[in-house]
């Protein structure tokens, strides 16, 4: 029943239905780590990576749960798997590249509670994507997350040097900017079809 091409899955996930700006997923890191360009890029990279891994695992789990006919375990197993993948990835990176670990390390635990990751797993299941589609979907979602994060980080860095009125300082300004960006992304509507 699903006739979407891989390209349109990617575009839809990244731009049209951007996880942050259209689905409100991953807002916490979006607000939390978007103050600086450098941390934003790193966080974005980490999220993209974990998203890909957990999307693949979620595909496997879903297939397994369907085969044993226990759909009610979906959520709990997804979250457990994501939490453990994050841990595994953390340990893996620590072993392979201490440098990378140093720059990414602090973000990885945060990712566990990033709804964007769980969101990808849940949405790909509810959309009934196959393996390849899931992978592309998670890549698109990750790219979209990264894009939104990087865009807002650049703007917020510039806002450090602006005479922002007291009442709009802080989260309010970030949310306003996010709202405007969300409007901007409406321009992409229909691109993925």
């Amino acid at each position, binding site marked *: 029943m699903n006739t979407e091409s891989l390209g349109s899955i990617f575009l839809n996930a990244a731009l049209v239905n951007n996880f942050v700006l259209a689905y409100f997923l991953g807002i916490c890191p979006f607000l939390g780590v978007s103050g600086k360009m450098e941390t934003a890029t790193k966080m974005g990279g980490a999220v993209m990576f974990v998203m890909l891994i957990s999307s693949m695992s979620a595909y496997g789990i879903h297939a397994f749960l369907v085969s044993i006919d226990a759909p009610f375990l979906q959520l709990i197993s997804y979250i457990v798997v994501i939490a453990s993948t994050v841990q595994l990835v953390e340990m893996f990176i620590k072993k392979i590249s201490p440098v990378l670990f140093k720059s990414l390390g602090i973000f990885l635990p945060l990712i566990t509670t990033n709804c964007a990751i769980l969101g990808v797993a849940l949405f790909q299941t509810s959309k009934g994507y196959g393996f390849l589609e899931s992978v592309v979907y998670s890549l698109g979602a990750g790219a979209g997350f990264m894009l939104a994060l*990087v865009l807002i980080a650049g*703007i917020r860095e510039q806002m450090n040097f602006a005479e922002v009125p007291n009442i*709009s300082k802080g989260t309010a300004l970030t949310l306003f900017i996010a709202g405007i960006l969300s*409007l901007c992304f*409406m321009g*992409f509507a*229909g691109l993925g079809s």
Partner: protein
Amino acid sequence: MLKKTLDISSSPHIYKGRSTNEIMKNVVWALLPVVFFSVYSFGLNALLVIATATFASVLTEHVLCRLSKKETTIGDYSAVITGLLLGLTLPPSFPLWMAFIGGIIGIALGKYIFGGLGYNVFNPALVARAVLQAAFPVAITTWHPAFLTDRFSSIASSVFTLPFMEPKFDVISGATPLSAFKFDGVTTSTAELAFGQVSGSAGETCAVIIILGGIYLIARNMMNWRIPAAVLLSAFVLSGILYSINSELYPSPWFMLFSGGLMLGAVFMATDMVSSPITPIGLWIYGGIIGILTIVIRVWGGLSEGVMYSILLANAISPHIDSIIKNRVYGTKRKIKTA
């Protein structure tokens, strides 16, 4: 006897003698012909819409300055420009109450919360229009036909819709050249487009007048020519390539350049200095992004027009352009900043 006290000041002691105020004023001059043509082609409707948007912008600027206990900044003309540009991007029969709200949003959301003139990341007029587009999608896509015979004697009923009420549009709209093409495959001749014989937003229809305004500002060195050049060039090249691939499916590059808000956007909105990059290379990249995104959205997107979104997106990217593309400082190697 010479007097004892002298004023002291820091060097330099001479100045070019140009002011921001003057630049802004000249942008207003350059916009006026566009406004006149708009009124000429759409009649009293356009006049009312543009005036309302401008009034609302200036009023908001004034009130916000008062509220934050600063001296009013309406004298710097930037609010006037925001209001005029907003008015020019609205359909001529747009309800006045919506235009008024647009003016408020443009200044409050587009400028004030960022810290006022000089700090706005996005073009305030386009922020306002984007919000209006999202809030009132029907009203903002109902186009009033141009050159109606009674345009100077009657006013469309939708214009005077009561505040917060849904407008009723009396004429079933004239389609814009772009929507006519996108949804019905009808092209409009370039001459008609260039001289504004079509319907559309109040100020976007006559490409020639817009270009003349741009040339005036460029000649007076009050606008960076690179932005419109880059926007138009990139849009032309991309649509030219598409046209040469399949001239049935894709419209001619000339049609793309002269239709919709591309000309108005390239000349008057993308060139907003505050929200565009500062280095020459950065400006070319910025303009290129706008041109390409516009064509991409027009050709493949769901909307028939993409100039507004392209410029806003490019605005969002422009801090990045500035932080990556820097002039190579004298006596140093070019720093490639890997952000």
